[in-house]
């Protein structure tokens, strides 16, 4: 085994990832979910729900990025996207997609960002 690099860990996360996602791979299910997609719950968590689904619904009463969900629930990004794919399929959450890269050329958006930064 190599020495773990700085900022990198080799640990038991894959097992947990496997457990919470039922072993499914993310590739087929999470298309379009980005680190900064904003998730908003459409319903309260219900008893009997898988606990990770309930955690997400509880967390996302207000818009919450997938990065924040991953951080607060201490789950890898791709595990969160797999869980979210289920919730999206059942219409239990709303996804507010991030602005696409084409907006790099949108001067209205660029000015909006500048105005926001100017207030810092």
């Amino acid at each position, binding site marked *: 085994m190599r020495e773990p690099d700085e900022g990198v*860990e080799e640990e038991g996360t894959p097992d947990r990832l496997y457990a919470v996602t039922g072993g499914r791979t993310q590739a087929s299910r999470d298309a379009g979910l980005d680190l900064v997609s904003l998730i908003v719950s459409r319903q309260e968590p219900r008893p009997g729900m898988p606990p990770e689904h309930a955690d997400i619904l509880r967390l996302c009463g207000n*818009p919450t990025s997938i990065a924040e969900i991953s951080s607060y629930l201490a789950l890898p990004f791709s595990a969160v996207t797999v869980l979210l794919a289920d919730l999206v399929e059942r219409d239990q959450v709303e996804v507010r997609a991030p602005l696409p890269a084409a907006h*790099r050329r949108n001067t209205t958006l*660029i000015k*909006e*960002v500048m*105005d926001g930064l100017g207030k810092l």
Partner: protein
Amino acid sequence: MDWESSDTSASDGVASDTIAAPRRGPRKEDVLPASVTAAVKIVIVGGFGVGKTTLVGSVSEIRPLRTEETMTQAGVGVDDTLGVEEKVTTTVAMDFGRISLNDRLVLYLFGTPGQQRFWFLWRGLFDGALGAVVLVDTRRLEVSFDVIGQLEERQVPFVVANNAFPGAPRHAAEELRAALDLPQHVPIVDCDARQRASSRDVLMKLMHYLHDLALTPERL
């Protein structure tokens, strides 16, 4: 990985050892209003210890958080006699912060981990990003060559920010441009990542650059 909690406020310039401990949810004051409809992101890249986490922390309205991803890569030091490539799963952590730009739009800043080989493996990290900040330390410029090449290849617009460490050789912007072989239009700025205003100015520089590019698209 250091996960210990700290009460350092996000505006003080938070270094990597003061990343917030994982919690089950945001503090009340960190909850975004329901009116927020979309997010944009900027990625901060640079070598080990160049000040990425500090920059994110100095401008973020929340204490920087940490997200992680598991990545599978071919093993290193594999026993060749077996003829099988061992897969090694690594967990890569990334710090991020947030700036509410107005009641509809929020900006996320991601500070990449020191290990460069993972930056472009993180699926989607650069895809929708408005752009990137390449943070450089003039004592170790060489770590920046590869990432600059990768950003150019992916057509991710970037500015170069020279984080002023004490004792680092002072470079005029044009010397730095030559050393990094940067095209004339790529902005180079000096910064002190610990200072909110200085970090904000770096982001502002990136936005001015994007604005120029939008008006003269042939340059990118």
